[in-house]
């Protein structure tokens, strides 16, 4: 019941974030969506994810505000606006119709099948010695994925340093 209320709040905040004209207001609305997502993770019994989502959301807000401060843009409606909007909305309606038909095949909410995880749960503490099962999965059973994620973070730091560099050249006399 609480999850339904949280999801409807998130949809309203997302619509506000997309439609409002001021850039700073839309960034703050995206922050509201992120904090509501952290609450949803807590209700779904996932404390690891709630801590990570909260601090990552704060850092993402700081970076977004740095990019949009003092930079605004007036709204201009040019021709063929009605045709574009109607075609986009009809595409989204067809997508949601097929999604409704496909979601009936999933197992119902609250009764997962858990065929793969039974082995991780039964042997997790005895094979790894760690009490937190999520840490045991990401650092012992599936440590290769964590290595890939460390590589992606490293690549992104190198990429930002390469894009925002001020090249200095020494003049040769």
């Amino acid at each position: 019941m609480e999850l339904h209320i949280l999801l409807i709040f998130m949809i309203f905040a997302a619509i506000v974030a997309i439609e409002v004209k001021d850039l700073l207001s839309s960034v703050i609305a995206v922050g509201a969506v992120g904090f509501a997502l952290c609450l949803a993770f807590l209700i779904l019994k996932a404390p690891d994810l709630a801590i990570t989502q909260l601090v990552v959301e704060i850092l993402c807000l700081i970076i977004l505000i740095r990019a949009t401060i003092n930079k605004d843009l007036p709204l201009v409606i040019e021709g063929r606006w009605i045709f574009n909007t109607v075609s986009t909305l009809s595409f989204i309606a067809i997508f949601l119709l097929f999604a409704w038909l496909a979601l009936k095949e999933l197992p119902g909410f609250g009764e997962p099948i858990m065929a793969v995880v039974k082995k991780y749960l039964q042997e997790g503490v005895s094979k790894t010695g760690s009490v937190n099962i999520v840490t045991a999965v990401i650092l012992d059973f599936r440590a290769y994925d964590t290595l890939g994620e460390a590589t992606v973070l490293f690549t992104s730091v190198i990429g930002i340093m390469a894009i925002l560099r001020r090249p200095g050249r020494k003049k040769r006399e």
Partner: protein
Amino acid sequence: MTLYFLCLMLFCVGLYGVLRKRNLVKIIVGLGIMEYAMNLFFVLLGYRFDGRAPIVARDQNILNMVDPLPQALVLTSIVIGLAVTALIISIAIRIYEKYGTFDITKIKKLKG
């Protein structure tokens, strides 16, 4: 069942933002909303009624936990989402310095 459908509606709001907006920052905001919706969908798949958080305690039943495997995958996805957002924001800052605007219909010139 309605929870899955509401999650996909949040995804569609983000998709509308990416397709129809002309301001570059609005496109980035729509991309972020799509990432949040997909992370939530993954964690919704693994919930169990009357389950416990996946941390072992000394005196509790061990087979009563929620599914920890989608939580491990989503933990990776949240941090990668932050890295992609930071990179795309730095590209947007560079575009603003070069062209003076965030409007995507005015930055079509491919100069050398």
